[in-house]
Each structure stands twice: as structure tokens, then as C-alpha cells.
């Protein structure tokens, strides 16, 4: 019998009763969610529903108001600093805005996690970094500074940095923004390859339905602070619920309001009661 639940459990991340209130607004209200090991799970939903906030709960960057977040058998919010950092060493995180270190070259950005945590020979660091940069198509840009890159290139460098230590879990926060069709296709292939060859668990946060459907094994749709739908891309695309129907067809009318809450339009324009 294996006493370690982290090794026997097929669920890498288990979230129960998550409740988050930010600036007086309820972001999550009793969210339950499971992320299976070795699979690609997409988290989708309208803008501002808290997809990135959910990732911040998973990585221990933001404390929830209630509920528990279990990652690899450990309750993230009961971990001490050292244990949390040990857990984070096993997680690769692609930030929405890349978050490259602006004082370092592309090469040094990708090498940063290796240099900080492993005492590897320089030749090995060089080979690992160049391999990862080759995977994202930017080996030739190794000596450039982040300020010399386009937005799409920065995201690819950030992706190379996120995977440089072959982590157990990779969180991709909006990985397809700013990518041209060629880069997009290559990144999709890379995500799938990492998943198939290394058994990496991946969480994909994004809006690009067509891209997400190509790689995701399952999709969580978040709306109004709850899990509105869960299933395979094919299940959700069939639009079994009003949430999925509206989200996948991109309509303004439906349970998810397109407009931010506002006073009456006519009244605000001064037209109400004018008789015209």
C-alpha cells in the first residue's frame, strides 16, 4: 500500500468550496474543481470571471476567503514558505504578460530557474536552454534583450522559461495571445508533445476556442462565480446549457451579460422623459 496520496491519486489539483471576494465583488462562490494528472484541462470563461485569480489560488499567490486548494496532496494555504517554494519548483507558469526579466537577455531569462536552483555545468545549462528555445522557435534570438522582441516572441520566451525544468504542472495563462498562425500551430504542438511525452499536467487558460479545442482533454467553463459547465470540448461545443450555448456561439444575449452593470442608458444620455 502506498501511503503517499500524491502518488496514488489521479487528481493533481482538488479545489473544494472555494470562495473569493475581491474589492467587495464575489469572484468565486463555492467552486469545486478537479484537475486530473497528465491531462490538458482548459479553464475558460468570459473576461473578468476570475480565471487568472483561480490560477493564483492554485500557486499560492492569493489566499481564498474560504475553501481549500490541494495540489499534489498538499493544502497550498497550509504550507510554510519553504514547502510552498518546493511545490512551486515543480510548477511552470506562463504569465499573461510574459513577465520576462527585463535586465536579462532571452538566454539568461530561460536559464534563470536553472541557475537559481540547480548547480549544473555551464555547458549543460547552455544545451538545455538552447533546446527549449529551439522548441519555441527562438534559438536564434538567444542573445536579444526582451525590449527587442515582439509581444508574441516574448510569450514564446516565457513559455520556454516555464518548461525549462520539465515541471510536473504547467499553467498557461492566455498562451495564444499575440501569436501568428504559424507560431500558434507550433505552440499547440509543443503543448501536446509535452503532455504526451513527459506526462505533464497542463492547465490552459484562454478564450481561443478553436485553439483550445485542438489540445484540451476537458474544459471547465466558469461564469458568475461558479462552474457553469464541465466536459470534453465536443460535449461543450454541442451547447447543452444556456451558458455553453452563449459562450461557444459568441452571442451578446444570454446568461452572461456583455455589458458591465450600468444605469439606464436613455436616462444617462438625458433622453428619458423628454417625449422624443
Amino acid at each position: 500500500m502506498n501511503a503517499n496520496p500524491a502518488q496514488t491519486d489521479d487528481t493533481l489539483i482538488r479545489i473544494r468550496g472555494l470562495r473569493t471576494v475581491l474589492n467587495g465583488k464575489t469572484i468565486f462562490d463555492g467552486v469545486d474543481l478537479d484537475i486530473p494528472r497528465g491531462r490538458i484541462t482548459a479553464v475558460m470563461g468570459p473576461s473578468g470571471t476570475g480565471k487568472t485569480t483561480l490560477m493564483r489560488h492554485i500557486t499560492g499567490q492569493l489566499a481564498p476567503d474560504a475553501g481549500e486548494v490541494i495540489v499534489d496532496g498538499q493544502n497550498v494555504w497550509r504550507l510554510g514558505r519553504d514547502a510552498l517554494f518546493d511545490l512551486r519548483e515543480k510548477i511552470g507558469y506562463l504569465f499573461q504578460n510574459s513577465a520576462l526579466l527585463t535586465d536579462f537577455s532571452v538566454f539568461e531569462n530561460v536559464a534563470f530557474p536553472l541557475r537559481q536552483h540547480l548547480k549544473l555545468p555551464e555547458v549543460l545549462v547552455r544545451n538545455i536552454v538552447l533546446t527549449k528555445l529551439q522548441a519555441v522557435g527562438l534559438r536564434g534570438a538567444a542573445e536579444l534583450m526582451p525590449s527587442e522582441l515582439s509581444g508574441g516572441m516574448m510569450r514564446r520566451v516565457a513559455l520556454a522559461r516555464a518548461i525549462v525544468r520539465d515541471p510536473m504542472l504547467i499553467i498557461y495563462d492566455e498562451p495564444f495571445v499575440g501569436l501568428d498562425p504559424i507560431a500558434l500551430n507550433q505552440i499547440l504542438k509543443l503543448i501536446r508533445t509535452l503532455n504526451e511525452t513527459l506526462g505533464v499536467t497542463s492547465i490552459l487558460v484562454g478564450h481561443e476556442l478553436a485553439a483550445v479545442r485542438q489540445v484540451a482533454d476537458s474544459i471547465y467553463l466558469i461564469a458568475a462565480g461558479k462552474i457553469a459547465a464541465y466536459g470534453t470540448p465536443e460535449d461543450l461545443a454541442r451547447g447543452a446549457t444556456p451558458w455553453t450555448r452563449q459562450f461557444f456561439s459568441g452571442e451578446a444575449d444570454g446568461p452572461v451579460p456583455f455589458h458591465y452593470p450600468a444605469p439606464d442608458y436613455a436616462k444617462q444620455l438625458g433622453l428619458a422623459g423628454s417625449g422624443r
Partner: protein
Amino acid sequence: MNSVRAPLSPFTAGLAQVGACGIFLLQILRALPRSLRYLRETVRQVFFVGAMSLVIIMTCGLFVGMVLGLQLYHTLSIFGGTAALGTVVALSLYRELGPVVTALLFAGRAGTSITAEIGLMRATDQLDAMEMMAVDPLAYVVAPRFLAGIIAMPLLACTFNALGILGAHLVGVSWLGLDNGTFWSNMTANVDVWEDVINGVWKSAAFGAVCTLIATFQGYTTPPTSEGVAYATTRTVVFSSIATLAIDFVMTAFLM
């Protein structure tokens, strides 16, 4: 809790800031042993806040010394005491002007750039990225700058003092005709290394700690917007200047 809190009165908000800054200092002190791993980064920061500030420190030191020489020569000549020029200039610089003016210049030159740099790292998620790569930004970014401030400030103050004395010598001896031997011999006879010079060095180290603490705190806690970074750099100069003068009074009262 992440929910909305009631707005604080300006006085309470100020007290909360002081308290938060105190906690931040404790966090830096706790991160200091871990930051010893990043010795190269500390050396880089000593160069950045120290060597890169030399031009402004040397120029200002020279002119402050020249003004001191000119003013004191005319004042002392009323009492027939121009021979004491070297002594008075040296004591003024070592005890007060050197550490205080250096700290004010440091806050404007190095403090603002530390705040802006860390603030922009906050605004562009670089600090969060380090956290996610299991690298503590307090140990990697903040502590080396804090140490660099404590190391660089006394060195800068000594440079300021040296250039100030040179400026006073230029005016008093080369221009107004005071005897060179009198200038130096009175100074060496009346300035005590421990009471005057070393006390000034202690003051500088304290000012270095306070100025870099304020600069790093403002940068680390700035709202991640361009306006937030702008306000944070302004607050660095204002708070550092006030803290320097207030601490100078307290330290002078204890060290005299």
C-alpha cells in the same frame, strides 16, 4: 480577507504605512542570510547606487565646500580667526553636512531609481514571476539593494567630505590667501577621528539603511500603474528627506 475595507483617515493611514514599513524591514532582515547567495547582485548594486552616484556627490561636495570656505572666511575674519577655517569646515562636514547632504542627494539620485526599478518590476509581474520560479524577491531584489545602500552611503559621505575640504582649501588658501600650513595643521589638531569622523560614518550608515528601506518599500508596495510608480518615487524623496533630518537630530543628540 480580500474584501473592501473602510477608508482610513490620513493620520491612521500614515501610521499604517509606518507599521507596514517596519514589518517590511523585519522581512528584509529575515531574508538577509538568504541574500548572501546573491553576492554578485549586491556588488552590482553597490556599483549602481554608489559608483554611479559619484559624479553628483563629488560635484556637490566641491561646491558645498567652496561656499563654506567663502562664508566662513568672511565671518571668521571679523573676529580675526581665519586660521580656524580648516577646522570649522572639517567639523561641519564630518559631523553634519557630509552625512546629511549626501543622504539627501542619495535619496534623489539612487533612492528614486531603486523605487522606479522595483515598482516597474511589480507593475510588469517580474516580482510575481520570481515568486513563481521559487526565487524570493526579498532576498534576490530587495536585500541586495538594502545592503548596498548601507555600504555605499558612508563611502559616498567620505568622498563628499574630501571634496568639500578640497573646495574650502581652494577658496581659503588658493584664492583668499590663507596659509596652507595653518589650514591643515589646525584641522588635524582639532578634528578627532572617533568623535567626529567615525560618528559621521555611523550616521551615514544609518541614513543609508533608512533611505534604501524607504526606497525599496515604496517600490515593492507601489500600485502596479504608471501613476502609482510616479507617486512612489516622489514619496521616496519626501519621506527619505524627512526621515534623514529627523534621525540626524536624534543621532546628534545621542552622539554629542
